[in-house]
Each structure stands twice: as C-alpha cells, then as structure tokens.
C-alpha cells in the first residue's frame, strides 16, 4: 500500500475544517501540528489513515485531522481500532489516547492490544491529569498531588507507562515530548515504520490543570535531566558530560571527565532486559528521564496472523458456499 504514486500532499491537506478547541497554550496543539506536518511525508495515500480516539481533551484529535477518524468512547479506542485494523489490515491505524483514557478506564484494552501485537500506532498524550473533566489526578499523577478530587493530596501511586507496555509484551515502546518537535516527528515515523503494535508516550503539558509538569525536561535544565536514547550508542547526556554505567542491573550516573566511553552502557533497542531497566528510570530521583525508542523488535502482528489463518483455511478447506454447510451433516428427505 505504500509508495504507490501518492500525490504530493502538504500539511494543509491533513487539516480538517473544524476549529481547534483546546485551551490556548495546550501541548496538544504542537502534537497536532507535527502530525499534520509529518503524515504527508510518509508516502501513503491520505484515505488510508484512520485516527481512532477515546474521550478526553487529547481524544478530540481526530476531529482536526482531515483523514478518516472516529472519536469513540472513554477508554475503548484500542478495541475499536482493533476492529478497524482486523477488518482492513491495509489501513494505517492510529490511536490517540490520554493517560486517563488509556491507562485508567482503558487499561485493560491497552494491555491486550499490545500483548497481541496489533499493528496500531498508539499515541498516549500523558499530561498526568484528567484534563477534560477539569483536573482530577490520573494514574500517572505523582503521589500527593492536590486536585479538586484530592484536596489533601492523592494517596494513589502512579504507574509507569513504558514499564506497563513492556510487561504487556509490546514490540515498540518510545517516549517523546510535545515541545520536542523534531523528536516527536522522528518517533512518529519510527512508529509508522514499525510493523506491529507501537506505543509512544508523549509528555504533554496541560497548562490549565497541571502546568509545568514536564518543566524539568523542557526548561533550561533539560539536558541535565533527560537522556535521549540512540540505538547502539553509548548513553551519555548533559551535553556529553555525564554517562550511564551499568553494574549488574544497577545503573549509575557517572562523570565523563573521570570515565571513558567504553565503560558506558550502550543502548540496544532489541534487548528486553535493558528496556525494562531503562523504563525504570522514569521519574527517578537521580537517573535522567529516558526519551526516545526504549524497545523495538520484530514479531508477527495479530492482524497479519489473522490474514494468514484465513488464507490457510481457504487453501486447506477450499472455498465453499453456505448452501453446502446447510446441506452438511445427517439429513433426510421427507417426500
């Protein structure tokens, strides 16, 4: 379906005629703009993209994309998208969800869609808050968060989306940030190219209910607090001044003035153990926040296996018609 005389389209072609209604300054704008910009470069026909979302601020996304789209119900987008993808595996199906939509009410579907390696591109806008319902804490909110629903601070512990995804047997796990425009586009391209289920957690600022949640990674100190993962490259950050060393399964930050490059941990996207270790650096007090592709392997997708099974059954059993089935079994004639 790819690379066949696709007319050259531009960002404009991917913009719908609907007025965008997020709060001014919301991180969702940047993600939308980047998506509209990168999609035409994929070399695929526009009508083959489908955006499926749940409910939340983030889930309004499909209305603004001039592609096929479906704004469904809270938490169920992965399941609806599953139906779309099985029904027509030639489509490029994108799921847009939030931290509440995808991990709270829809946690079950999130886990299973990854387990099956359903070839969906899941974009989770994680603002660590329920935006649409006006600011309750979410499953990724830090403990102690004061919201209208937790005036004394929330007593819930947050979960770690990449760890959850890896535990669910995801074959592609990445993280990016709304403000990191180029990186965001790069992750989306990687996801698009990944043949199988992919999960991108996007740190997204909700400037109304959880402003500055990701300040550490977007503000002036960002280089000290973030490590950008690059496959087969040593894990150095803070403009090359710091690196990560692994002793056993314990990672430590080291000063690059005192250590040489070959002591430094090298990223390997296909190493599941390493991926689990990296995922655990999320919101770590000492280790930098991992951004980029944490894990990526090839594995046959559910939708492809489904196609194969149907084809195999046709080959083995041959095609027949319903009338044959009706007439099968023990029959007798009344005359």
């Amino acid at each position: 379906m790819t690379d066949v005389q696709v007319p050259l389209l531009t960002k404009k072609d991917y913009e719908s005629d609907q007025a965008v209604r997020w709060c001014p300054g919301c991180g969702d704008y940047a993600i939308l703009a980047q998506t509209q910009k990168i999609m035409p470069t994929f070399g695929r026909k526009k009508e083959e993209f489908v955006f499926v979302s749940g409910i939340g601020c983030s889930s309004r996304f499909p209305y603004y994309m001039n592609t096929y789209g479906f704004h469904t119900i809270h938490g169920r987008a992965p399941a609806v998208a599953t139906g779309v993808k099985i029904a027509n595996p030639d489509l490029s199906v994108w799921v847009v969800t939030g931290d509440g939509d995808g991990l709270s009410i829809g946690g079950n579907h999130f886990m299973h869609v990854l387990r099956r390696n359903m070839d969906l591109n899941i974009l989770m806008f994680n603002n660590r808050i329920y935006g649409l319902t006006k600011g309750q804490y979410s499953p990724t909110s830090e403990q102690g968060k004061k919201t209208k629903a937790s005036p004394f601070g929330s007593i819930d512990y947050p979960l770690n989306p990449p760890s959850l995804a890896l535990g669910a047997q995801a074959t592609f796990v990445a993280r990016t940030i709304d403000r990191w425009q180029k990186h965001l586009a790069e992750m989306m391209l990687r996801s698009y190219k990944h043949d199988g289920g992919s999960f991108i957690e996007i740190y997204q600022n909700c400037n109304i209910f959880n402003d500055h949640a990701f300040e550490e990674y977007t503000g002036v100190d960002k280089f000290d607090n973030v490590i950008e993962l690059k496959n087969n490259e040593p894990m150095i950050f803070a403009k090359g001044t710091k690196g990560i060393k692994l002793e056993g399964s314990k990672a430590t930050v080291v000063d690059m003035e005192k250590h040489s490059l070959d002591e430094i941990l090298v990223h390997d996207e296909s190493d599941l153990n390493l991926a689990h270790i990296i995922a655990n650096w999320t919101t770590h007090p000492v280790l930098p926040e991992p951004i980029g592709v944490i894990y990526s392997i090839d594995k046959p997708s559910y939708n492809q296996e489904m196609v194969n099974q149907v084809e195999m059954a046709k080959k083995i059993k041959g095609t027949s018609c319903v009338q044959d089935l009706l007439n099968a079994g023990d029959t007798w004639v009344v005359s």
Partner: protein
Amino acid sequence: MGKTFKTIDEAVIRFAGDSGDGMQLTGGRFTETTAIVGNDLSTLPDFPAEIRAPAGSLAGVSAFQIKFSSKDIHTPGDKPDVLVAMNPAALKVHRNELIPGGTMIINTDAFTKKNLKFAGFESNPLEDGSLDDYFTIIPIEMNKMVTAACEGIEMSPKLIGRTKNFFALGVLFYMYDRPLDATEAWLKKKFKGKDAIIEANTRALNAGYNFGDTTELFMTRFKVEKANLPTGTYRNMNGNLATSLGLLAASEKSGLDLFYGGYPITPASDILHTLATWKHFGVQTFQAEDEIAGISSVVGAAFTGKLAVTATSGPGIALKGEALGLGVITELPMVIINVQRGGPSTGLPTKTEQSDLNQALYGRNGEAPLPVIAAATPGDCFFAAYEACKIALKYMTPVILLTDGYLANGSEPWKIPNVDELEDIDVNFAQEKNSEEEYLPYLRDEKTLSRPWAIPGTPGLEHRLGGIEKAENTGHVSYDPDNHHKMVELRQEKVNRIQQDIAPTEIFGDDHGDMLVLSWGGTYGSCRSAVETLREEGNKVSHAHIRWISPLPKDLGEIIIGFKNVLVPEINLGQFLRLIRSEYLVDAQGLNLVRGRPISASTIVETVKKKLD
C-alpha cells in the same frame, strides 16, 4: 416372547444422570435417530453450570429431554413418560416430574450407600417402596451388563463402565423401535482410530437393545409413526448453530465478510466456536479481552465495512451498553445477539429466561432506540439472524437479536432452506461525494432515513464519526438544543420506519375471540401447542407471535382489538406485557413463571381456561 406393539402419537423421554454419565451425548444420539426415523421432535438439554460438580451430587445432575411425535409439535414436552435415571441424584432431582404411571429405567448399580447418602436419600427408594405405587420401575444393573458385554476388550473397568449410557440408549431404541445403525456409524466416525472404544460402546448399545428384547420387564413396545412434515430435505438443528448459519448466509448474500468480536459466555459461546471454524468463508473471529472490547471491535469493523456481529448473554450485554449507544449515534450496522439466560448477575448461567427484554429495549443511556428481533424456535434462529443482518445493513443501525438458552441448545427437525430464495441484501458503499463540496456522512435516504456508508480507504470521502451529538448531514459536532431534539426524534423515527419491512402478523385461529395468547421469543412453541389444544377443545382462543419487538408490527393494535382478553406468557415478570399494556392501552394479563425452564403448554392451557371461566 409375545411382545406387543402399541402405536402412539407422541412420547416424551428424559435421560438424567451425573455430568460424567454422558447424558447430553446420549440424548443427542437418540435425537439424531429419531430425526432420521422421520418424527417431528423437540429437545431440551438441561445441564449444570459446574463443569465437574462432585460425582453423584445433586448439583451435578445433567438431563436431556426429547419429545417426538407423528404430528407437528412445538415443544420438548412437559412431563416425561420415561425417565432414565443413571444414579440416585438424578432420580431425586427428576422423579417428581414424571407423569403418574410413567416408566423409570434405573441403573441400580449406581445405587450404592454412598451415592444414596450423597443424594440425600435416607433409604433406598428402589427398596422402600416409595416409587412402586406411582411408576413402573425397570431396575437394570447396567454396570454389570456392560462389563459382561465388553468381556475380552482390553480396556480398564472404569472405561468400560462409561459405556453404560449407550446401554441405556440401546434399551430406549428397543422400547421405541429405533434402528441402531446411525449410532454405530456415528461411533465409528467419532472415535476413529480408537477401536476398543468403538467396540465397547457398540457392544453396550447392542446389549441394551437385546436386554430389552429378552427381559420380561418390557412387554409392550411403542411405535411412533413418521410425522407428516412438509416435503423437503431435513436436518436436526439447534439454535446456536442456526444463528451462526444465518449470519454466514447474510454475509454471503450481502457480499460482506463476517467479523465477529466477542468474549466467551454461556450459553452464547458456541456461536463463537462455530464461526471460528468457518475461516475459509472469510470469517474473522476475534476473541476479545472482555465484552466491552468485543462490541468496540465490532463498532470498528462496522465502520470499516464488515458485517460486524457479537454474541453474548445478559451480563455481557450489560457491559456492552455504552458502545451500543455509540453504534446508535454513529448509525453503524451491526448485530448484537443476546442468548438470554437466568439473571440477574450470574443468575442461572445454563438455564433459560426471557428477562433481558427490557435491557434490550432500554438498557442504554440517553434515548438510544434500536431494533430488537426475537427468534421463536431453534431453527428460526437462522431466519431471525438473517433478518437482523438485513435490517442492520438496510437501515444502518445496530440490531439486537434475542434468543435464549432453551432455543440455543434445543433442537428440532429443520427443513433446509435454499439460500437463493432468501431475500437479497444489497449493500452499496459510498464511492463519491454526495454534495458539491464535501461528503456528507449523514445525508439520509428519504424512505429508510438510512445514511450512506463510506469506509476508510475510499479516496475523497474522509470524514469523522463520533459519539458527540452531531449536526444533520455534515456530522459535525453540534451542541445546539434544537438540533439535539431533532436528532433524538430522528433516531427513533428511523427505527419506527422498519415497520415497513415487517411481515404482517399471522394469527393462528380466528381474528377475534375470547382470548388472544400473545407471545414473543422462545415461548412460541408452548403457546402454539397450548392454543392448538384449547382450540381442539372448542375454545375461542387464538395465538399471535411477535417477532419484531422494536418496532412492533403495524397491525398488532388492530389484532388485539379483536379479542376480549389478552394473555402474555413469558419467562420474566411481565416485560413484554407492560410494553403491550402501555402501547395499546389494553388490559392484557401475564402468565409469568421464572424457573429457568420453558413455560409448559399445559400451564398455559390451564391458565387460559381459568381466565375464561
């Protein structure tokens, strides 16, 4: 031996034993042979919810009832003439249901002290005379019999003991003069390569037959002549298979591949199991993580142009409610099957009930009307499923099909339909813009109010669907109060328009009289039998059966006016009754028995008579 034959019109027999005794299988074999012999028949399997309740316990009793006849019949019968009881627990559970003077065929080898105690008998009912006055008891040492019959076969005594159900089957084949060859052929096919098992069961079957022949216990054998069924080729058909076939037929006739997304639940799982074997018909079955994902995947597949279906039972429908509303507001074609079982909550998973009608009609938030059709008999599930698909595609709407545990597992001889003669199902995906500037996903057909169906992948028709209220034609989000009111009315009106597709209601009997028995769903058979009996006795009673409950048929109001009384028998506390009362302002009465079993025809007869007195 001087045995005599007595020709009878019909007989009802019930096999009852422990879950491990193979009663469903035995009943199935008796059914198959009875069908081949040419009787009309109707069956009622009745099994426990526990897969392996402790052997010999009351909870573990599994039963299978069949009524067969030389006449056209509609129910599996009320009280059996013959009860086969393979152990004390089976006797305990079923003894009170046998007709007075009925025959009990009992495996006395199972009447050990331990089993008797387990079944709660203080003394052995075979010895204390408690049964003798009421029934003809035929005690048989079945375990000993099969052990003797299988002598020389290299098989453990335990496995040989397991053949006793075939012994019992042989006895009944003798009693009712049925051939053994179909069962023998079936054994050969089923246990292909396992010669010892084939041999042992075949010998047990023959031993049972011969026992009947030699024993003095049976002096009379019974003949039930062929039924006078309409000509054609027949097979035995149960409801879940019929439903599956109906869906597949609709797939073939519409040219749309079938997508099934669902989560296993009794008594609907067999639909998933059956469809999963039809991959070579292009059927895609998706076993989802729960019912919510099941219906959600169906919504997605419907958006993408499949004939999308899910099947479940009441608890599953409860979970699917929100997504069904999404299907209603986005006007996507799909079929949702509820094989009803006893509720609420887990209720009686393996028993039948009609108590999810309100759930089907009203079980969603907001004004979320959708068409509801109910199947009448096991074989009718085929036509009901077909019709459900047809209406869903024609009107672009979710349709609920109600069947129930009794229909799903019950069976009847079924005249095989000709697929060519089924009404066509036309589907046209939108290919081009339907207005000058843009594609309007909600531009409606004037007659059906149905909207066009443009599926992802179609160039130029990119559009967005969603669960937020939409403006007419464009489908854009709209919070306008007047628009919402209009949409609410429009969605109801669309369902109402389906009346144009509903066949006129047939009245069995006169179109006026003292009483109309009005039924829906699986109570069809009992109601029809009851009204046949009442009419034969000269009562001015008629029967009307309703297939589409939403919308109701146009002519029902007229029909009701023709009768002084209306009786609505249903296996719930009056859900259809209340609908009829409110729709037609008629003082209809209910007959409501919620016992997890079909309402018997005799109960309906009695009730009608009492009311007419």
